[in-house]
């Protein structure tokens, strides 16, 4: 030991005795904000979090986080209209993260690697009946099974899957993928009984000693419109056509087929028919801007050579042709007749103007209230007006997409779970929104020059080949790593680095950081430099 001089020579690191935390008037805290993708996702997926693990190459972990909310990622990675991407904050910088394609990559990865769901650790002995094996029913069954309940599904069709099997064309969702993901659910102990149409809900409940029921029968009736027709023109409905294509692959409809409607079903029908060698033409009464169909799907349709007759209604179906009335949009964007007509050559018309719920079976249940084309539910718990009977999917008011059905199935399951425990399900409060303004874009913008071409490549791959091809692993990681991690920590070490007082403690991989309030002076540099908006300065309590 050195013989140190008095006072003028000091021992190292002795400043630790000086707790500068007492200077603080503002205190940094970690806040967890709701990323716009998560907020937008109808299935309630924690997208930011599973992208986080995907970016690390920990695909199984990513998949497990994803499937907390959605048991069908391989299907959803194909058929979801991924509105999340339209909300992605990265869109303000360059382009949105290709969330959907990463989801598909993870779904396919799980199938390829035979990943299975964990069985519940404890059986509750409670029995729940689910009617309908569409996305809502499967989602609800999955979540209930995770709670440890016994779940049985009754399905009227020959095979499970609902609209995923009988509505969505094969080119969008190969059936082996659907089968694999349904099998994973039945492997958990969920039982599905097909070819069983429920005629009396209460009777089924009673006879099967079920403690609760979830209705998930969907909207299986095509909406009809009265088109005067001659005897030679076929007028078919979309669900029948899609169902037939799904069951038999090859059906005879005609060469020139008018598909009437502007929704996703119309596009599905048109593109399916195109694959069968027909020349479909979509007839829609409004214009492209007003079209409800998914834009990417519509782009695909146009690329595939499908014609569209905009601002047109079919007034009459004659032999080999249709009589079309031209429309114009009024100030509110609604079509009005112009009185101008033209003929459109067509062998057949497929009506794709909407689907309806078959409420007849519901109406048999005393006290089960219905409304226009839906079962009335408590929007929080998904319970119908009859205790113990819940509903989800296209049967209830709301968006009719597969993704929305999965989300509703999840909430219905949670509603049931609370009900079975004698509680009332209350949805968790959402975090405050992670806005782009909360982020620090400077930290995200720059891609090293040598890598820039990869970005273009990835984006091309994602947009051009999305339906037919999934991402390579490389591109999937690439996309996942483009996530800005809005409002949530991505362990970039910025707070740890930029603290002039070394008052941020790094806890290690996956563990994040801690503020050392003994020394933190409350300068706020960490909050200002956090790329994700994950740190907030709050007034110190005095």
């Amino acid at each position: 030991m050195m013989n140190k001089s008095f006072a003028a020579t000091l021992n190292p690191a002795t400043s630790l005795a000086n707790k500068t935390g007492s200077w603080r008037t503002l205190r940094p805290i970690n806040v967890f904000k709701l990323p716009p993708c998560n907020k937008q996702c109808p299935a309630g997926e924690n997208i930011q979090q599973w992208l986080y693990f995907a970016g690390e190459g920990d695909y199984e972990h990513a998949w497990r986080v994803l499937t907390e909310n959605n048991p069908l990622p391989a299907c959803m990675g194909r058929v979801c209209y991924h509105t999340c991407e339209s909300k992605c904050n990265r869109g303000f910088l360059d382009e949105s993260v290709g969330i959907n394609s990463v989801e598909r990559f993870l779904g396919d990865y799980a199938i390829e690697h035979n990943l299975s769901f964990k069985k519940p650790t404890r059986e509750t002995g409670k029995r729940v009946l689910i009617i309908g094996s569409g996305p809502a029913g499967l989602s609800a069954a999955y979540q209930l099974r995770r709670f440890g309940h016994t779940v049985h599904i009754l399905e009227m069709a020959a095979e499970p899957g609902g609209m995923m099997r009988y509505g969505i064309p094969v080119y969008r969702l190969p059936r082996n993928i659907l089968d694999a993901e349904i099998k994973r659910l039945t492997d958990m102990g969920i039982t599905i009984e097909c070819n069983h149409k429920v005629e009396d809900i209460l009777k089924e409940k009673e006879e099967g000693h079920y403690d609760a029921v979830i209705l998930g029968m969907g909207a299986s009736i095509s909406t009809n419109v009265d088109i005067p027709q001659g005897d030679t023109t076929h007028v078919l409905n979309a669900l029948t056509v899609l169902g037939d294509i799904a069951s038999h692959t090859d059906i005879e409809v005609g060469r020139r087929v008018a598909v009437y409607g502007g929704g996703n079903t119309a596009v599905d029908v048109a593109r399916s028919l195109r694959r069968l060698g027909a020349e479909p033409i979509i007839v829609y009464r409004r214009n492209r801007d007003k079209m409800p169909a998914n834009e990417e799907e519509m782009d695909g349709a146009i690329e595939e050579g499908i014609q569209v007759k905009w601002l047109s209604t079919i007034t009459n179906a004659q032999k080999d042709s249709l009589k079309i009335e031209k429309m114009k949009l009024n100030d509110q964007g609604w079509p009005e007749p112009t009185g101008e007509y033209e003929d459109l050559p067509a062998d057949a018309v497929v009506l794709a103007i909407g689907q309806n719920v078959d409420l007849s079976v519901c109406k048999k249940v005393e006290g089960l209230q219905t409304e226009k084309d839906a079962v009335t539910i408590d929007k929080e718990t998904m319970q119908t007006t009859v205790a113990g009977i819940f509903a989800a999917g296209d049967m209830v008011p709301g968006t009719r997409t597969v993704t929305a059905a999965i989300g509703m199935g999840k909430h219905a399951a949670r509603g049931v779970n609370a009900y079975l425990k004698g509680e009332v399900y209350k949805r968790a409060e959402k975090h405050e929104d992670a806005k782009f303004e909360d982020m620090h874009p400077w930290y995200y913008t720059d891609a090293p020059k040598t890598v820039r071409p990869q970005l273009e490549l990835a984006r091309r791959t994602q947009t051009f080949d999305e339906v037919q091809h999934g991402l390579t692993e490389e591109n999937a990681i690439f996309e996942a790593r483009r996530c800005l991690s809005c409002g949530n920590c991505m362990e970039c070490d910025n707070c740890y680095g930029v603290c002039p007082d070394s008052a941020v403690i790094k806890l290690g991989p996956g563990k994040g950081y801690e503020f050392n309030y003994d020394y933190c002076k409350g300068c706020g540099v960490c909050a200002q430099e956090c790329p994700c908006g994950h740190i907030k300065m709050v007034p110190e309590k005095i």
Partner: protein
Amino acid sequence: MLDAIKFYQTGSKTVGNRLLNPSMRSNQASESRPNTLISGHRACQGCGEALGARYAIDAAMRATNGQLMIANATGCLEVFSTPYPESAWRLPWIHSLFGNAAAVGSGLAVAARVRAKKAGNTNVPRVIAQGGDGGTTDIGFGPLSGMFERNDDVLYICYDNGAYMNTGVQRSSATPPAARTATTQLVGSEPGADWGKGKNVPLIAMAHGIPYVATASVADLRDLEYKVQKAMSYHGARYIQILVPCPLGWGCASSSTVTVARLAMETGFYPIFEAEYGKVTSVRKITQKQPVINFLKLQRRYAHLTGKKGDPKVLARIQAMCDENIKSFGLIGDEVPETVPVAIQALERNQTV
């Protein structure tokens, strides 16, 4: 596969990146970073100098495997780090005087070599001398130039915040024009620091022909660490000047330290470059060019330029300075300037507004 993909969420601009191989991460990202300047020091909230010093000295510790000693000039850094009875340093450190850090560094380097030689030890501790811009560009300039000229094995780091902050924000020869300091107040017909004064020490250092000269900023950690590491790979005299905003002296929010430093880079106000043996060898390119007003408006020392009463002519003159920096240092584009750039003060003196 994971390493091969280099486009990360954050490029290379954040301090760390969990997706990077640990060997590729910044020194500051490491849980076991040296923290040479440890907590409990008495720097103001958001002190850029405290941050810059830890960044730089930690990097040098890594580069020298812990065989490092510091000579520190009088100034904020010295005062806030070593008030009796507490020191915030974890490595051998000495403070002697305001103006002699470079010379004390030379002496330390001599002692280190002689002791190692006597002990038959080939592992010679390295020396860093450091100070603020006052201690470097003004009072310590003679000893600094002497250390350069002798090519003594010392890395001198100047933490440049553009004024004498420790004594209460007085003008130094590193104070930019029009900036308010206690000795260049916002009064009279030309408020703030005079135009046509000051010196560019990095360029003067280059004129000594020393092995390595660089400027850096607390807003670009990886660049800073790279430069310190590179500097330590040379023997002989080296100079790094780091822009370290002073929230107190500049009149900016304590939380804006890094932000305002970043804007100094991105506006061309503070060119970041490196030079080897007198020639510029690389330039840190501006990533998102911004008008200088974005830099100025965060600071009360320029309040007279950015408010409604701001003189657009003076603002235009500062913008012209930045534009000239961008041009002469090649801050935009792929080129590295071939000629030795001219100190910006020449432009000031050459120009009549």
